[in-house]
């Protein structure tokens, strides 16, 4: 230090601040302890983990390669692929139809009744979201038998939950000005929704719709595993028979289709953004 200054006894500083630092470090420590305990509880062999990566590479190279592409180049399989697309399409469609009222009722600012309708709508959306689409699929298969109907229903519920939350958040983010203006003219809630809210959220809704379809398709490829129609059924058959090369081929087809769907949905969302 090249400045002659009086050491001011007031000038001290410590990084540790009580109680904030204590709480923060305590929380991180608690998390670390929990994670360490988990490793023990689940009997994870940490020392063998690196060996496992080797085994994975092995499995991939030996059992899953080369993928049996001929197996999937099959008219019947293509039929299943088309079915998967249709299931996804219908599930997203019905889900979105349900989302419009659910999102509306589940939005804090536009719901018809904050004490009654809002919690119910929110609860429905959250339940649909919380339950995994596979659980829906399995239960519907148990009730309705094998086929695509349970698949479509499962996807519908899934999409309702997924899009419902997003849509409600969009509605909650609108500019309330036009809404107030319409209220002042004496319009009822439905008219307000139609003329003040809908124009504002229309573009976002389209984006949500495309995103939902994309996600629904990914789920649709697998619901067949539990009997709900679509490509997943092929997957199950071959997993059970440990025909890993065929499984690899099916996975390849899934990846290709999802990649295409992602490109298409990204392009569509871009177009929609530009419209805005």
């Amino acid at each position, binding site marked *: *230090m*090249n*400045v002659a*200054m009086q050491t*001011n006894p007031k000038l001290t*500083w410590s990084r540790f601040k009580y109680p904030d630092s204590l709480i923060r470090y305590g929380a991180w420590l608690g998390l670390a302890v929990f994670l360490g305990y988990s490793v023990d509880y689940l009997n994870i062999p940490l020392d063998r983990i690196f060996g496992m990566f080797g085994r994975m590479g092995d499995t991939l190279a030996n059992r899953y390669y080369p993928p049996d592409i001929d197996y999937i180049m099959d008219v019947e399989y293509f039929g299943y692929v088309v079915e998967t697309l249709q299931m996804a399409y219908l599930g997203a469609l019905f889900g979105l139809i349900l989302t419009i009222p659910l999102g509306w009722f589940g939005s804090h600012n536009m719901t018809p009744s904050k004490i009654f309708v809002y919690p119910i709508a929110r609860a429905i959306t959250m339940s649909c979201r919380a339950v995994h689409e596979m659980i829906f699929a399995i239960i519907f298969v148990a009730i309705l038998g094998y086929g695509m109907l349970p698949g479509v229903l499962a996807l519908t519920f899934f999409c309702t939950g997924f899009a419902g939350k997003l849509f409600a958040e969009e509605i909650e983010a609108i500019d309330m000005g036009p809404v107030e203006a319409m209220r002042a003219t004496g319009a009822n809630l439905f008219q307000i929704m139609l003329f003040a809210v809908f124009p504002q959220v229309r573009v976002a809704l389209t984006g949500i719709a495309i995103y939902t379809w994309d996600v629904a398709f990914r789920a649709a490829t697998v619901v067949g595993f539990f009997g709900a129609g679509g490509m997943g059924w092929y997957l199950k058959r071959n997993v059970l028979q440990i025909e890993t090369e065929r499984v690899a081929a099916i996975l390849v087809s899934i990846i290709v289709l999802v990649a295409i769907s992602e490109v298409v949905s990204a392009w569509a969302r871009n177009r929609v953004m530009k419209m805005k």
Partner: protein
Amino acid sequence: MKTLEVTDLCARYSMSGPEILKKISFDVEENDFFAIIGPSGAGKSTLIRCVNQLVKPTSGKIIFNGRDVTHLKGRELRLMRRDIGMIFQEFNLINRMSVMDNVLSGRLGYTGNIRTLFRTFPRAEVDHALQLLDRVGLIDHIDKRADELSGGQRQRVGIARALMQDPKLLLLDEPTSALDPKISREVMALIKQMATELKVPCLCNIHDVTLAMEFCNKIIGLQDGIKMFDGPTEQMDQAKLDEIYSMEVL
């Protein structure tokens, strides 16, 4: 020994881009408060950044305290940068970190990686930081997040951070352009005061000519990458200013 000798410095941002600096030469001596003035786009900021190689010069020579630093790389470059403090127009503080942590970050060139990870700095450095913060008048704000401060306060943190390095040269890149006129004057005065106290020469890129004339003892005027004027402040007059800034009239 002169602190900085710049000879025939040229710089361009890309192989195909225009030449921003065209053979600039000047010297900075130990007790200078050197100003670089000129219209926007003249290359003032580029010139400043060539000194500590935030921008790589394409040709020419820079000698810092008798050592040729033009083509330093890696560790040597970092060691050289330790000795040069820099104060920025947009303050460039770490917004989510506290004022104290921001000032201490000036010592990163002297801190090992493990200490950096745990943010432990030696007691002596913490004391130095406290003294600097006291000197710039921010001792009551040391635990505030940097983005909770006003513009003038943030720049003062920037000053403290630069001086934490115990620099042999201070680079100032339009330190007051983002501040209102009254605060600008206060900040310039503070910088001048502390630089004089600590005997650190300053090289200052400045937009406001009045401030330059008031605080600096030597001036170079740049226009379109070419040096138009180089001399003590007393020799600057309206005619020469018009020449430097003539592009703006057009």
